[in-house]
């Protein structure tokens, strides 16, 4: 008997999960090194981190080819969706990670913080993020979410000499745990109604049943709770409250990491769960997303207007960006589950990629201007930057214009894509709301630009510690700006990439 049932696990396609393995490997190397060897110069840690991220990025592209040849499929016991969608996201995440690790190197140097642990956490968080995008099982999504979140809580609190950092960590942790409990409850209820947490099963189950059985309150409650969890992660109003505090308190590179990787993962997960797993319920959750999107763009932009701390401003602006992304999700909702898929998903992906790079660049500048102690993030700290550090100011200006969605920058392309998607699905009202809200947001960016270029010097400006631009950060910013402009001028390739990724998303396949 015992011999009769020797357990054989599912076939594990190591090649397919290689990006994750690379990241994991990098993380472990760092830990081992940190634990066993004498300290390396900090730069090396960053290099290890960047290199493994880069390797993962390359692998993702390679896998993409494989997918476009052999088609998307579910692997490792249907737990992971092996499709271009996840690859696109993982590329975006790795890209952001590379830039962030460059910033962090200089940041740690300046703040005199140590430790490979931070990079290790970056890598682990990246794993969690990629898993969220690639998961084919709600439980896996939850686990990925937790990996990402726990890492982020820690990173946010990682600046030991800034109470603000730890405060933000605690806030983020409490609220995050609170929210993920809701998410998990949602998973449980879906499990109860669909009979499994596996997305494939869920899709099959609901697609056969919902038509006959409309009032499945339990499932709806589950969806509601899932939406809550995801909305919290993407910082959609009214689940955005944590964002400004956490963004402001966390060390600038970490903030950049949250804003780029965190958002990307969250939205990827949202698309997975809602658009892919629950198309049968789209008429139920689409209005909710509509409302969330409208609220988020408007309130996010509005709240930013009166802020005086640049990091907070950008936090709120990231909220309004989340609103724009939600507009894309709303557009995707219209064609969720259909073979003739609209541009909703692809536009959201495009936006994520662009915003990720853009926001890292922006926070990089903020971090540099923050000066030692990472405290000088008040708008006054930018006064006269145009004179003292013109190149930095120019870069910041470009990035801010991109955030405002000005043409010739990637920001415009992103915005255009999302609005186009919305319009194609005939949700004009939402499109108009979003555009008008973006005008309000623009005011904020203008304020920063003014203080950089037009504001007259004030007493004590010269007493301020001069802004230093270390090499790595400089390169990172340069890269971000370059990307912003290149994509702004020649976005064709990226657009088709995102559309290709969508076409090769598991479940979007005809």
């Amino acid at each position, binding site marked *: 008997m015992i011999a009769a049932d020797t*357990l054989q*696990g*599912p076939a*594990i396609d190591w090649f397919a999960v290689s990006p994750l393995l690379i990241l*994991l490997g990098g*993380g*472990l190397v760092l*830990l081992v090194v940190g634990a066993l060897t004498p*300290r390396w*110069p*900090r730069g090396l840690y960053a290099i290890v981190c960047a290199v493994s991220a880069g390797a993962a990025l390359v692998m993702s592209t390679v896998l993409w080819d494989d997918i476009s040849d052999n088609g998307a499929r579910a692997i*490792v*016991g*249907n*737990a*992971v969706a092996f499709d271009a969608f996840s690859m696109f996201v993982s590329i975006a995440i790795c890209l952001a990670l590379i830039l962030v690790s460059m910033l962090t190197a200089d940041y*740690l140097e300046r703040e*005199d*913080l*140590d*430790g490979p*642990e*931070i990079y*290790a*956490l970056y890598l*682990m*968080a990246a*794993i*969690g993020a990629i*898993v969220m995008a690639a998961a084919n*099982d709600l*439980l*896996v999504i939850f*686990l*990925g979410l*937790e*990996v990402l979140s*726990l*890492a982020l809580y*820690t990173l946010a*609190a*990682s600046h*030991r*000499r800034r109470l603000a950092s730890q405060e933000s960590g605690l806030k983020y942790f409490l609220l995050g745990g609170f929210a993920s409990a809701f998410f998990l409850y949602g998973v449980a*209820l879906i499990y*109860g*109604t*669909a*009979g*499994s947490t*596996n997305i494939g099963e869920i899709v099959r189950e609901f697609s056969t*049943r919902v038509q006959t*059985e409309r*009032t*499945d*309150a*339990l*499932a*709806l*409650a589950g969806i509601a709770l899932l939406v809550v969890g995801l909305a919290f992660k993407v910082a959609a109003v009214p689940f955005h409250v944590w964002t400004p505090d956490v963004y402001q308190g966390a060390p600038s590179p970490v903030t950049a990491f949250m804003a780029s990787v965190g958002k990307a993962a969250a939205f990827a997960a949202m698309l997975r769960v809602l658009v892919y797993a629950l198309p049968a319920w789209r008429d139920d959750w689409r209005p909710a997303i509509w409302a969330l999107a409208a609220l988020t763009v408007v309130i996010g932009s509005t709240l930013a207007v009166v802020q005086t701390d640049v990091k907070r401003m950008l936090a709120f602006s990231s909220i309004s960006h989340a609103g724009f992304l939600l507009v894309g999700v709303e557009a995707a909702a219209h064609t969720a589950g259909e073979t003739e898929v609209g541009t909703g998903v692809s536009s959201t992906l495009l936006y994520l990629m662009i915003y990720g790079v853009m926001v890292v660049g922006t926070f990089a500048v903020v971090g540099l201007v923050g000066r030692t102690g990472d405290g000088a993030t008040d708008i006054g700290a930018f006064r006269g930057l145009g004179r003292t550090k013109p190149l930095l100011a120019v870069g910041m200006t470009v990035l801010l214009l991109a955030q405002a969605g000005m043409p010739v920058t990637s920001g415009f392309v992103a915005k255009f894509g999302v609005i186009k998607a919305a319009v194609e699905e005939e949700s004009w009202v939402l499109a108009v709301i979003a555009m008008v809200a973006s005008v309000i947001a623009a005011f904020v960016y203008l304020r920063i630009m003014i203080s950089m270029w037009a504001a007259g010097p004030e007493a004590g400006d010269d007493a301020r510690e001069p802004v230093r631009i270390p090499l790595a950060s400089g390169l990172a910013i340069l890269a971000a700006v370059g990307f912003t402009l290149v994509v702004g001028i020649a976005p064709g390739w990226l657009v088709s990439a995102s559309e290709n990724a969508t076409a090769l998303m598991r479940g979007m396949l005809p």
Partner: protein
Amino acid sequence: MELVVFVCAAAMVLGGAIGVVVRSHPVHAALSLVLTLFGVAVLFVAQEAHFLAAVQVIVYAGAIVVLFLFVIMLLGVDRVEDIDVEPIPVQRPLAIIVGIGLLSVLVTAVVQASSAVVAGSGSGLDDATVTGDHDSNVRQIARSLFGDYVFAFELVSVLLVVAVVATVLLSRRPDKTGGPR
């Protein structure tokens, strides 16, 4: 019989839970938490989840709560927090509204669903249980754990690593800062 078990356990669970919320002394709260956890364990047993019941008792009621108590003692935050005053203005009413809203909606959902048809079987929540294979509970869990959930299992390992790294990073003393000058 089942009824009795359920009622007692439910009483333990809710009693403990409420205790956690209302007991102004952290230590008492922790102890009420233990009560709840035991109650939940009992219910697990009632639901034929023997393995989980065990884990619940050992890991949760054992390890975690001890950890809580340990921290409380360690940091000496065991000062009484008086529940009666609420510094933040509308917090309490808000909490009540949220509580009532949450409970009522969830309960209605459940009750609604109890009649609805559940996956697989063409029958409602309250209909007779479909009994799976009569393998032992542990064995089943093991199978699924290393079967369909192997990826999740691996992922959890990452999660634990993160937790470890986190503690390492956070518990460094602020004053001493390593690294080469």
